[in-house]
């Protein structure tokens, strides 16, 4: 079933019938397995990977480094989960190294990110400091190149 998960992470829009044909399974087996993964949280969701430069208003994306004071008993979890709950936060990771949380924030404008950091993030008890980096250009996301260059072409017929 690893092959099924592997294929779904590459292209989740394939129908159960299409997936089954590629993996020598039946459509019913594919449906049962994906339903089980959705139920147990192995599969959290399905999304389109969008190039914001092609959309009318792509908004802005920022990566915020956050330093936290860990709590006795709970470590970073309670605070990290609280940060992750904000709608503006698309990704939230606990990191090793010079800071604790890497928080990716998506918003309509620079001001909106600034407001989120100043009013929401920094004011949380336990947040020691934040450093905000704005994204300038995307070259690759989720395995997709923004401007894929076709590899050298083959002859149409070869022995």
């Amino acid at each position, binding site marked *: 079933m690893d092959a099924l998960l592997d294929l779904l992470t590459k292209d989740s829009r394939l129908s159960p019938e299409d997936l089954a*044909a*590629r993996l020598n399974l039946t459509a019913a087996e594919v449906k049962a397995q994906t339903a089980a993964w959705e139920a147990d949280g192995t599969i959290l969701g399905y999304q389109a990977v969008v190039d914001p430069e092609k959309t009318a208003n792509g908004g802005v994306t920022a990566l915020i480094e956050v330093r936290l004071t860990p709590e006795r008993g709970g470590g970073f979890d309670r605070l990290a989960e609280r940060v992750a709950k904000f709608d503006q936060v698309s990704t939230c990771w606990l990191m090793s190294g010079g800071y604790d949380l890497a928080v990716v924030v998506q918003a309509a404008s620079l001001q909106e990110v600034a407001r989120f950091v100043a009013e929401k993030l920094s004011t949380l008890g336990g947040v020691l400091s934040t450093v905000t980096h704005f994204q300038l250009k995307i070259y690759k996301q989720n395995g997709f190149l923004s401007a894929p260059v076709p590899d050298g072409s083959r002859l149409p*017929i070869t022995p």
Partner: protein
Amino acid sequence: MSSSVKPKIADRIQAIPRSGIREFFELVLNAGDVISLGVGEPDFSTPWHIREAAIYSLEKGQTSYTSNLGLLELRKSISKYVSKKFHVDYDPAREVIVTVGVSEALDLAFRALLNPGEEVIYHEPCYVSYSPTIYMAYGVPVAVETSADDDFALRAAAVEKAITPKTKVIMLNFPTNPTGAVMDPKELQGIADLAIKHDLIVITDEIYSELLYDERTHPSITALPGMKERTILMHGFSKAFAMTGFRLGYACAPPELTEAMMKIHQYSMLCAGITAQVAAIEALEHGAAPMEEMRKAYWRRRNLVVSKLNGAGLKTFQPGGAFYAFPDIRSTGMTSREFATRLLEEEKVAVVPGTAFGKAGEGFVRACYATDEKQLTIALDRIAAFAQRHRKSLITLAPTP
């Protein structure tokens, strides 16, 4: 070429017919925007780490000749790889020769082995160059036809029938182009027994041996008892490592056979290109993971292609290896050539007529699935529409069991 030159061409070369595949190539070129399932090479580019190794060697100025046999470091890598994969040990100093593709290795072997009139038994349908290469080495090609009833696998009994006092070599290539057929280990043992009994040399072209599906393992005939001393194992980098354009292959054989091939190689080729040889070391030493990713992609596509072709009423067996499907197109009432030509005209999809690979390919076409899944899906839908449109009325078909 002006027509006045033609009479000067050697009779033997004039006698070689124009390749069916070349003819079809020109048809496809003229057809314009075509989805081609007619290629015989991976759609992946060579994995980046291998290309990078080639670039680095150029930066370092590695642009010289190498030893006639190939870089010793590469021969050591080959020896290690072959030992791990086929469980047979070859001495990198005396039993390995690096060539410009398996194509050159084949040419060397036939020229080194054959006296005029000696026969080589090989299977058909098969890769297009076996018969002409044997012929150009003054040998006599003896085709043994494999059949759809056996999923185009070669049977030892069929080989035995073709053996004559003139037989010198048996040529194997499994998994094979164009059918994707694999060899049953029992039949392989049967062929080894024949080779020993009749004192024959076996040439085994292992070019597709990494591309095997369904947990198959691939025994090579050279690993069977008594076979190493009478076998020339050939392999290359084109298919498994997606390195067709590097043109690199090798042969492993007992010292006296390797030496004989080297005699020809040193005067005709001198050595294989050094850039390709350096890239090949990287492929053998660090290429296993990217190769496995490609193999998995081919496996998924094979499943897709076989299920869609069968769904379209074109009976297709599940090929055990390589990256070709070989559908039976007789339900359309067309010949292979007619099917391929009309599919090209009506649906802009290119496949290769089975007859390009020998007479036994009549009634079949080769569809290569080394193409990305989106294009493949469109092509298969078009083939299905074509097959539906041209299906002979079911009433006129003989009942099948």
